[in-house]
């Protein structure tokens, strides 16, 4: 499978990465190079093979459903580029 330039624009959109028009063609070439190379996986017969979900047999451990953290709005927002009264600030989302 290979991707065309429209697909690359769509992937960029889904990835939330602004892509300049002049970057589309080289990126298409790079992605197709990688996709052509991973194509060899198709020759592997995986009939009846389950996908690997855990590399070491282990049960996911359960913990008590209790609050263990919180009340630290200053810490949560201290690295944000823009905040106001303990909230993150973003451009207007709704009219």
């Amino acid at each position, binding site marked *: *499978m290979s*991707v065309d330039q429209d*697909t*690359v624009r769509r*992937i*960029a*959109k*889904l*990835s*939330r*990465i*602004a*892509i300049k028009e002049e970057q589309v063609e080289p*990126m298409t070439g*790079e*992605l197709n*190079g*990688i*996709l052509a*190379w*991973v194509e*060899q*996986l*198709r020759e*592997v017969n*995986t009939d009846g*093979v*389950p*996908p*690997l*979900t855990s*590399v*070491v047999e*282990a049960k*996911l*451990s359960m*913990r008590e459903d209790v609050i263990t953290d919180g009340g*630290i709005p200053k*810490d949560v*927002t*201290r*690295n*944000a*580029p*823009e905040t106001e009264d303990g909230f*993150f600030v*973003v*451009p*207007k*989302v709704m009219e």
Partner: protein
Amino acid sequence: MSQLTDMTLAQMRDGLRAKTFSAHDLAEAHLTEMEASRILNAFLVETGDKALAMARESDKHLEAGTARPLEGIPLGIKDLFCVKDVPTTAGSHILEGFSPPYESTVTQNLWHDGAVCLGKLNMDEFAMGSSNETSYFGPVKNPWRRAGSNQDLVPGGSSGGSAAAVAAKLVPGATGTDTGGSIRQPAAVTGIVGVKPTYGRCSRWGVVAFASSLDQAGPLARTVQDCAIMLKSMAGHDPKDSTSLKVDVPDFEAAMTGDVKGLRIGVPKEYRVDNMPEEIDALWQQGIEWLKAAGAEIVDVTLPHTKYALPAYYIVAPAEASSNLARYDGVRYGLREAGTDITELYENSRAAGFGHEVQRRVMIGTYVLSAGYYDAYYLQAQKVRTLIKRDFDEAWATCDAILTPTTPGPAFAIGEKADDPLEMYLNDIFTVTANMSGLPAISIPGGVTKDGLPLGLQLIGKALDEETLFRVGGVIEEAAQFTAQPDVWWR
């Protein structure tokens, strides 16, 4: 003070306890080396004041006879680990200025055991790279150069700053992370030891995530014993990482008995790849001879799905990365570029904040996970992973550990492979299988090329059997007598 920095971590530990020198002396000696060696670009953040304060604390413990396992040992930390209130960037512009309000479990474990923090080490952006050239903060230079050459070489990656700092003796040990070979490959091309433990041995909590089912923290140091000492402190169950294993941490140092008599070492024919440089093959043969001479039994094993590990990795890792890196949105932390609406703010922030390799991988990952392609790519890759793991499971019926080269070649020049992503990816061809199967592996310096550049041998072990790796690794180290040192040109 240069003799202080020449010592191994174990010698430092003994010298501190014998009060031959203080933790403060040791920290100062390393800070001097660090400051004099900035041309290597190994450190992104130097934490000199923190180091001296921690060293003074260690000296109190040493004085009071309450020394902890790593008391007073100065360490470098890969910039993927969050250290509280110390800038953590993961080598990325998008995290520039980020200062975590929390501590990663692995570093917390190290400080709890008395280690001293010297600073944060350069790396490929988000650990995506095999040469440290994708760092937003510039490439790290390998302390090693080809004989008679002034050309700068890469230190491998992604833990390139860690490897260079250890090889140049700016630190006796450093933390690294290994998603496809990012500890072992740089260790090999800088002539040091690196260990990727079993997946789940070390907590991933507080480590900037790349590919969560593959990422694993481990040590880089100049000897096998030093790595054993570090790993003992780094490892352990952590309730904050659901994939961290609830198992006891063995005394890895005690596992180094020097005796491999009767141990069965597997040699997989699939690792003899096309165009393998003769020097790599020769080193591999040498490793086999060393272990034979030490009384180990060499057995041929077959790992038929080896060739599919790297392409499968380049589906699984970007897929998980595209999901993990969704958090960098210009809202909660890091770089923000203006946009007319929220979507444009995301798009502009991520376009400006991510480097080219990261963008490419996020896009590959997004594509293989997108509707209609998930089964063909991601699911197939995860099934191939099961087959790779089964290959190893079958091999363990006839052997106790597997010996291979660590890399397909020595360190290369900065810029030499930067234009071709696939050629760069091939650096991890021998290391990536251990990540895909979750198995532990170690790289030990084995010898040098005719140009005088170091090469490594890799041992892959059974799940949770790092002890055998340390045991066999110690024997290889003893046999190899790797005493070569880079000429000091960087200070």
